[in-house]
């Protein structure tokens, strides 16, 4: 049994608590309360500010809004799954297959691109893929294409860009969780005649679950809230919900509508993260470490 320590108000406690409270209350709690408040305000026919659900009604009545919302959510889940499929073999290779002396080097290679700004990475893809870009240049040179084709501004490229952007946040938790997997478990399973599929699904995946969950949460959240990649390589018809929020705030200057969208996005991301944690029986505080 653990003894509950009695709590005293001491000088160190006050010194540590004050800045933390200021930070969390002024920059996290109150702004989000204000977001909710603004989303419930609207103007009536006479131009007076009133409480109303009209911003949320507009969301459900205008198909373009909720279709974009659903699209963003579905694509984000898809990107999360694809990121996992791409990153898992790499994490397994680095931790379990490659000779130990290359491990550090590969890990450094894996991390390096992600220290570079997302903008630079997206810009790199634009140079590679656009009509006058590098890939088109080589393909037409080699005679594979007669005419350069525009590879930017479509959904496939956008999904690829999103997977690229968020790969690190899947790979790192996977590497750290696979490092703690004891090799002898796999050896034992192999001696007992298990095939690769069985080993993978019965040993590796269950062990890696905390890493998979934390990677998925971060990737999902980053994808859902991404503005740059859909905006720059997704093109005009690649509607992403953050673009709707931006348009309401900056272009139409309708802050109330924008707040409602923002709040809906926040609810969606919290719900999916909560569901993900519940389904896999993980705790947020454990997952982030």
């Amino acid at each position: 049994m653990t003894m509950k320590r009695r709590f005293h108000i001491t000088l160190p406690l006050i010194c540590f608590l004050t800045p933390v409270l200021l930070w969390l209350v002024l920059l996290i709690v109150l702004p989000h309360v204000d977001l909710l408040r603004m989303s419930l305000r609207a103007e009536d026919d006479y131009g007076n500010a009133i409480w109303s659900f009209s911003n949320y009604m507009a969301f459900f009545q205008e198909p373009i809004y909720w279709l974009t919302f659903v699209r963003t959510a579905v694509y984000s889940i898809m990107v999360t799954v694809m990121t996992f499929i791409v990153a898992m073999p790499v994490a397994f290779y680095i931790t379990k297959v490659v000779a130990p002396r290359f491990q550090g080097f590969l890990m450094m290679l894996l991390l390096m691109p992600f220290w570079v700004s997302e903008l630079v990475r997206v810009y790199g893809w634009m140079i590679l893929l656009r009509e006058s870009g590098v890939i088109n240049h080589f393909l037409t040179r080699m005679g594979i294409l007669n005419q350069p084709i525009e590879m930017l501004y479509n959904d496939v490229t956008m999904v690829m860009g999103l997977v690229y952007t968020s790969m690190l946040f899947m790979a790192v938790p996977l590497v750290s969780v696979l490092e703690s997997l004891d090799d002898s478990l796999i050896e034992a399973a192999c001696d007992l005649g298990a095939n690769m599929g069985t080993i993978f699904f019965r040993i590796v995946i269950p062990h890696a679950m905390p890493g998979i969950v934390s990677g998925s949460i971060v990737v999902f959240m980053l994808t859902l809230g991404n503005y740059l990649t859909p905006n720059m390589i997704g093109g005009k018809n690649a509607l992403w919900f953050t673009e709707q929020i931006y348009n309401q705030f900056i272009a139409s200057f309708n802050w109330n509508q924008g707040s409602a969208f923002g709040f809906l996005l926040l609810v969606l991301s919290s719900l999916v993260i909560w569901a993900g944690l519940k389904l896999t029986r993980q705790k947020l505080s454990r997952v982030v470490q």
Partner: protein
Amino acid sequence: MIRSLPNSRRYLYSYKLYIGLYFAFLFAPLLVTCVLAFNDSQFPYLPWNGFTLEWFTADLPERVGLFHDRMNLESIWVSAQVAFFVTILSVTVGTCAAFLFEQEEFPFKSALYFLMLSPLVIPGVILGISILLFSNTLGMFFETHLGIDVPLFRPGFWLVVLGQFSFIATLVTLVVSARLRKFDRTLEEAALNLGANRFEVIWHITLKFLRPAIVGAAAVAFLMSFENFNTTLFLVSSDTTLPINLYLQVRDGSTPVINAISFLLIVGTSLAAAVNLYFSRKQD
């Protein structure tokens, strides 16, 4: 399957091929960006017209290199200043938070801990608009009720600093907490027995122990702030940071000057990463 077991040659080769492709995919955009910063052409496209440094150094009417491009240089300076203040703020508050959650006891501790983690799962765009709204509300309140105009509450430099600080402080807290957890508290008790007070113990002993984590967290905080786009987008005004400025330029068509900036960013961050890695290796 793993290195200690016999593996078929086909398995190993196909695995190596996959890893090779993965790293090609990872580095292709960066490599191409760097190479095209040195191409003697008005646009960042192929064909290769020969090597030039003019996109860094030229000051010609038709070609202004990065070192003479006032707008871009200014935005780099703004970003550096923002990152400096964000780093100072988030390291201070993040270290306080680490001490608070690791060494103090108080009611509602787990609730506050959960709140401290929440910026990790709030999309950056939402954080940006919430802080924009709240500062606007505060500004209106001060103006109508007290008759004071507070420039801090309008989009601009300090709002960008606060917006970035709001989530970077969480990362600092996590990094510093992880190290603080490994601290041997008998050292503190010994110092207390020898007559030091709590603050002397923290200053002379615990902070010395935490220094590598604090330096590492500061480096990450600086970089994250320097490169932040999503939160900054809503809080910025006329003095744009580098990512916002680059975004506006790329949207309106690109010149190899953007490649030149990207090249410097890639080289700079890679060096910083290597140094950081080297020092964290030495620690272990």
